[in-house]
């Protein structure tokens, strides 16, 4: 297993895309914190702004870091097929499950390190602007931030699974962008149409929508007149997102074991 980890670490650390994707992710999330700081520097720092500054706008619906790290997740296996390196890789490490496990461990570790680094940088930005970060280590902010790290991690795992399932980069990218941004938004929007009210109970099962509840500070207030979505709690919703990632990963893993390389 150590050999496989050493292989995967060399693989990910000798790719330029790893650095610019991580860099872009950190730059954008830091940018959001700086913008918030500039815009709201004269207002008192409330829990809402603090959370959004720390997660780089993710709770606002734009999970930048998760998206950039998910591309690294897609590349983990997608690149191997896109460039044909899966053949030398498997002649170097023929135990397929060990290879996938090593790839997963490295991607998960990288995601956690980068996510916490991003939160640390943004905490620094908050301290520079407001000179304080009240309630950072207390509920509900601490819970929302843990939820944010979990959300990013599951998002990346979905990307990893899609890259392995589709055995390529473009189709996995299309799915990971299309699904949360377009498909889920459309279903959510259509649920407001009275004639399509049968979509209402579906909404709470939409994986990315459910996952986003992990990082919410307080239950999001819907505008008056909205249908009753009867959303699950933070952890149950997160569980739905995790289950979705697990299904994709399991399917991809089983197929990877069965298919010709």
């Amino acid at each position: 297993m150590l050999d496989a980890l050493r292989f995967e670490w060399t693989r990910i650390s000798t790719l330029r895309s790893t650095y610019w994707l991580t860099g872009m992710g950190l730059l954008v999330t830091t940018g959001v914190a700086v913008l918030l700081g500039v815009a709201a520097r004269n207002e008192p720092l409330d829990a809402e702004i603090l959370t959004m500054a720390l997660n780089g706008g993710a709770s606002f619906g734009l999970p930048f870091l998760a998206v950039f790290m998910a591309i690294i997740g897609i590349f983990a296996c997608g690149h191997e097929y896109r460039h044909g390196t899966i053949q030398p890789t498997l002649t170097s490490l023929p135990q397929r499950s060990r290879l996938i496990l090593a790839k997963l461990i490295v991607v998960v570790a990288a995601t956690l390190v980068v996510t916490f680094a991003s939160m640390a940088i943004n905490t620094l930005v908050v301290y520079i602007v407001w000179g304080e970060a009240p309630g950072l280590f207390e509920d509900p902010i601490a819970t929302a931030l843990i939820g944010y790290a979990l959300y990013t991690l599951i998002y990346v795992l979905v990307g990893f699974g899609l890259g392995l399932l589709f055995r390529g980069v473009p189709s996995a990218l299309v799915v990971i962008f299309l699904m949360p941004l377009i498909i889920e938004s459309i279903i959510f929007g259509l649920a407001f149409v009275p004639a399509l009210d049968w979509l209402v109970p579906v909404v709470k099962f939409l994986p990315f929508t459910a996952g986003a509840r992990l990082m919410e500070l307080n239950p999001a207030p819907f505008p008056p007149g909205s249908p009753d979505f009867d959303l699950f709690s933070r952890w149950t919703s997160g569980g739905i997102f995790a289950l979705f990632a697990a299904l994709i990963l399991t399917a991809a893993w089983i197929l990877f074991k069965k298919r010709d390389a």
Partner: protein
Amino acid sequence: MITAKGLYKRYRKTVAVDHLSFDVRPGVVTGFLGPNGSGKSTTMRLMLGLDHGEGETLFDGKRFGTIRRPMNEVGALLEAKPFHPTRSARNHLRMLAAGNRIPDSRVDEVMEFVGLGDVKRKKPKGYSLGMAQRLGLAQALLGDPQTLLLDEPTNGLDPHGIHWMRDVLKTLASEGRTIFVSSHLLSEMQLMADELVVIGRGTMIFNGDVDTFVREFTQSQVVVRGPDTGSLAETLKAEGADVATEADALVVSGLEIGKVGHLAFTAGVELHELSTRRASLEEAFMSATGASEQFVAKEPVRAADTAAPEGKAL
């Protein structure tokens, strides 16, 4: 030593590899011959467990998938350019080496050995096919393995490169290694290989040494030239030989050269040439695999030839 037993692979309705069994001995270069699409690459992928199928391949008694740090025992070159375009050649090899506990110093060593020392920090995107093949060989040699599996390693190499590859493989074989190298370039194999495994449409056509293959699949012919060989042709036919006329010569098959000479001598026919013509490996290969070729192109037909009968009808 490689022992392949009952290798079988089918894609839906097509059987790509049909129960192939063969041994590849150490100390010699074994050529793996077959026309395009005959299942050479699929066989090699089956041997390495990249493709799933039936049968079993043992490398010195072990299945590939069970070997710990396999690059140290079996080196493989299967595709021409399996490299990430922006990762330097050296880093590509470092990555594979890392999975098999091979030190970076060995990476530099093999890159020097294959002649890529000056461009090792360049990206393989800019490599020519010939350079990519050299990098592929460097990859196969990383772990200094006892066994090498190379799929068309001379593809894209210039004559100098082909010569070099041939010498390298022969040297490696003389060190007691097991070398299994596929090709559809038969002239190449004639110079490189000692043993042959010949397949067509996934089935075994021949397994043995090169000379036997040539002998088995070629008819040697006797060329007879002289000022007046017309009467001799009749005599030879009477002896049961096939006689064809080629320019000013007779091409005799089915009779030994000594017998032809004797007949000419007793008939008092003046000869200017009496020689044996041996078919090349190329021709042997054509006759051996002719019936089993997967993709057969039609013979080119000249427009004038097809137009002629119509002209006559008019």
